[in-house]
């Protein structure tokens, strides 16, 4: 991944988040049931290790906070990818979550779609969406649709056959 290093401002925000997360984990661990009624050894209390990890995360977060403030974290501008990158990421995330969560998990849309159909639709739409601009610029939209359709059918048929027939998995 060829990322530019994150800005001190991003580290500052993260450090605050880590301190909050560490504090929440410590509280969760500290207030956790100590099973005294079962007469367990107090050193085996279930919350002991999470509480210690919470302290560790909060301390590391505090060090990150100090470091980012020293590196002008309070004044530096927030960073982010280019708008094109952000929109590609949003499309990728939306397609993946709708497919995995919605179609396969049947929790977003509330109706049943066969696994093979959901897979074919996802692969077809994803390939077309990410290749659309280039294909259109080259005047190859028809070819792009054909390639996406072939990949979609091949993947749906191949994955369904292998997992359902060979591995005997009851597909979602």
């Amino acid at each position, binding site marked *: 991944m060829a990322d530019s290093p994150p800005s001190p401002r991003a580290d500052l925000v993260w450090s605050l988040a880590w301190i909050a997360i560490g504090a929440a984990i410590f509280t969760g661990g500290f207030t956790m049931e100590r099973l005294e009624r079962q007469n367990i050894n107090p050193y085996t209390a279930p919350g002991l290790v999470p509480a210690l990890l919470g302290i560790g995360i909060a301390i590391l977060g505090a060090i990150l906070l100090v470091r980012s403030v020293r590196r002008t974290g309070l004044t530096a501008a927030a960073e982010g990818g280019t708008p094109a990158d952000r929109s590609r990421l949003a499309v990728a995330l939306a397609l993946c979550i709708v497919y995995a969560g919605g179609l396969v998990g049947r929790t977003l849309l509330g109706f049943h779609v066969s696994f093979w159909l959901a897979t074919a639709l996802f692969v077809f739409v*994803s390939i077309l969406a990410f290749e659309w601009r280039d294909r259109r610029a080259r005047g190859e939209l028809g070819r792009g649709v054909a390639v996406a359709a072939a990949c979609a059918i091949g993947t749906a048929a191949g994955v369904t056959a292998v997992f359902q027939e060979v591995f005997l998995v009851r597909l979602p």
Partner: protein
Amino acid sequence: MFDGLALFGKSLASFADPLTLLIVAGACLIGIVIGALPGLTATMGVALLTTLTLKMPSNVALLVLVCSYVGAIYGGSRSAILLNIPGTPANAAACLDGYALAQQGLAGRAIGISTTGSVMGTLIGMFFLALFTPVLGEVALKFGAYEFFWLALFGVIISGNLTGNDPLKGWLAGFVGLFIASIGQDPIHAYERFSFNNRDLAGGFQLIPALVGAFGFAEVLTVLAAKTQKPVIHRFDSHLPRIGDVVKYWRTILRSGIIGTFIGIVPGVGEDVASWSSYAAARRASKEPEKYGKGSVEGLMAAETGDNACVPGAIIPVLALAVPGSAPAAVLMAAMIIHGVQPGPLIMVNNPQFVYDVVAMMLYATLGILVFGLALVKPLLKVLQVPREIIMPIVFVLCVIGSYAISQRLFDVWTMLGFGVVGYVLRRYNYPMAPFVLGIVLGDLLDKNLRRGLVLSDGDLTPFFVRPISATLAAICLATILMNFAVVRRAFHAVYVALTPWRKAA
């Protein structure tokens, strides 16, 4: 010694039937293709293949995973040489001289060198795997709760320190991994921790869906979010390896193989550090350091020998201690457990044959990468030219169905999605994934052994610091942390200078 050879011979023979050899060939080829495609890493490949091999007999399934692991680390050099894009993070060092050679019209020679280096590296690592696993297993039998606690912490701290470029973020990632491992029933009293009365969460997160998310889905998002250019491939010369290169650079090969193996043994560090360390050591020892980065055959040989030697090296602590030496080895360890093999100190007592089975798997994998690395140069070029926009949606389908297939519950799909998003965000902000994964894998070991140790000592912390192995591990952990502070480094340097006055005089 002879017992080991006999067990190794038995293991070699057990895999020598046509169907198994065909499977070896397929697994090596899949591994090479996964490695060669930028965006598909060895960890992701091994995690996805774990889900695809669930129904196979355990030895065959693990053979597939070992072959694909070795193949992926080797295959990554192909895109490093031809496209100047490392196929896996382990091949970043190979870009420097490999691509420079390709620009000079010597891409074929560079491929031959990377193949030779990878084969020699795997063989050297394999030798140490056979030699050290029984020895380390013997030492590990002396480990008690205190030592295992420090070993788990040592893995997370060393991994956080050496992977990525910011130890603080590495340790944070490792601690978060340790915390995630504590979600669900605790390993001593089966008390539900942080489950919020959710039945699925009470069982904790399964390792494979979590890793498929952190390495697979996160990678899909990373690749799809960035626009990729159509690859340009340079002219080719002969890709057949030259015996002269092996003879001329035998010292580099041996040194890099040893460095790679030993870095593999260090928990959670992995192939990329092995490759860079071998490269740096070769450059320091070279008679032609000025050629490095401009097409040095020696540099490419060192990088590729180092990363492939790290693969067997990373499996040594998996077998002897149940502590993975790298992220792909962590997945391999999870796969071993799924297939009913319990790695750890007792493996040489209960199942010594398995150790030599893994050594034999390494040998078959080496043969596989040698044959396919040289025979399929042209078809692999075609694979490299397939647009990432076509590959990634298909990879995501495998991530979804692979996560689901293990236990056939949708919670694992959600786990994969969640870990994918978290992994993407963490990577975006320079938090390395290796300590995160190692934290998830070692969390249970740390948790159980800290509490057991405290019970054994009745709350006294002294045994954690005075037993020889505990004290050594604790000292290394402390030194690793302290050496990141400039004040400590300066003080250390001042003491060093004061104690070695002859260096000053020289």
